[in-house]
């Protein structure tokens, strides 16, 4: 099963890859608190979708697990799991617990 650190590493890697494709003026600072969604989000909604697809892809290709991060539950939560790196990591860990 995946550890806290492994998931975090995966998200950070996906953010670095996203950053590489962004123009200089839009590049983001990557930390565990990097805001991904909401008023203070550092990336736009399409970049968030791209990031999530990339994370799903990494989990599938590198770890051979198939999970869907954008299922219905993620969308109806009072607090979005996509707020920042930390909340996203916690949500992915929850999904792994259910496997």
């Amino acid at each position, binding site marked *: 099963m995946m550890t806290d650190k492994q998931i975090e590493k995966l998200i950070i890697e996906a953010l670095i890859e996203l950053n590489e494709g962004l123009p200089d003026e839009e590049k983001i600072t990557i930390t565990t608190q990097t805001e991904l969604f909401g008023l203070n989000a550092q990336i736009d909604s*399409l970049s968030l*979708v*791209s990031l999530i*697809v*990339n994370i*799903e*892809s990494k989990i*599938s*290709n590198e770890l051979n697990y*198939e999970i*869907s991060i954008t299922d219905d539950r993620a969308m109806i939560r009072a607090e979005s799991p996509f707020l920042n790196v930390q909340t996203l990591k916690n949500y992915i860990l929850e999904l792994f617990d259910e496997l």
Partner: protein
Amino acid sequence: MKNKSRYSGKIVLVTGASRGIGRAISFYFLNQGATVIGFDKGEPTISKTNYHHISVDIRDIKEVQKAFFQISKKFKTIDILINNAGVLTSQYAMIMPAEKAQEMVDTNLLGTFFVSREAAKIMSRAKYGRIINIGSMATSLEPKGDSIYAATKAAVATMANIMAKELSNFNITCNTLGITAFQTDMLNQFPKEKVDRIIKALPVPRIANEDDIFNVIDFFASDRSSYITAQTIFLGGIN
């Protein structure tokens, strides 16, 4: 003269691959060097080395995701998606059975959406993709009896136009081919007089042949068509 290796090395996914237009399109790509993955609820009807059949009901998101997991593992990517699977019940609205109406919405619209978005996820990783929907003249001609069918096909074209915007950064194009009458099992459901009347009213008054369809597919699928997206091309002079 046809280019026999036009699609050599390409991975093409065709939905509704076991019958009718989907089967013809699958053979077309196979004969021009592509590897074809066929989605169909039914058994495979194509037996060729480069054909890979996956039994899947596209109305079921879980089945679709499972199928794409297999594709991701085996083929890594999809270059071209042909959204062909569809069902048609032609009936006056006031007597259309509810379950038939639901079936058209679930297959023609939601099924196409599920397949498109899962394909887009794979295509986005490769930064390349061509999504081609098989639409219908019914969206333009609006014939009696086709209220739900035409609505689902119009919805698919609209969906493609919006997905085209969302996916353009990934070099994925989304287009729709509005076909006219083509000799399939689906066409046989209509009274011959109705079909004849519709064909006679077309600017080019004849039934579509396979090459009419392949011609537009080639255009949308071409590497050169990266600047062609969110478009619908109708056959037979319909607009």
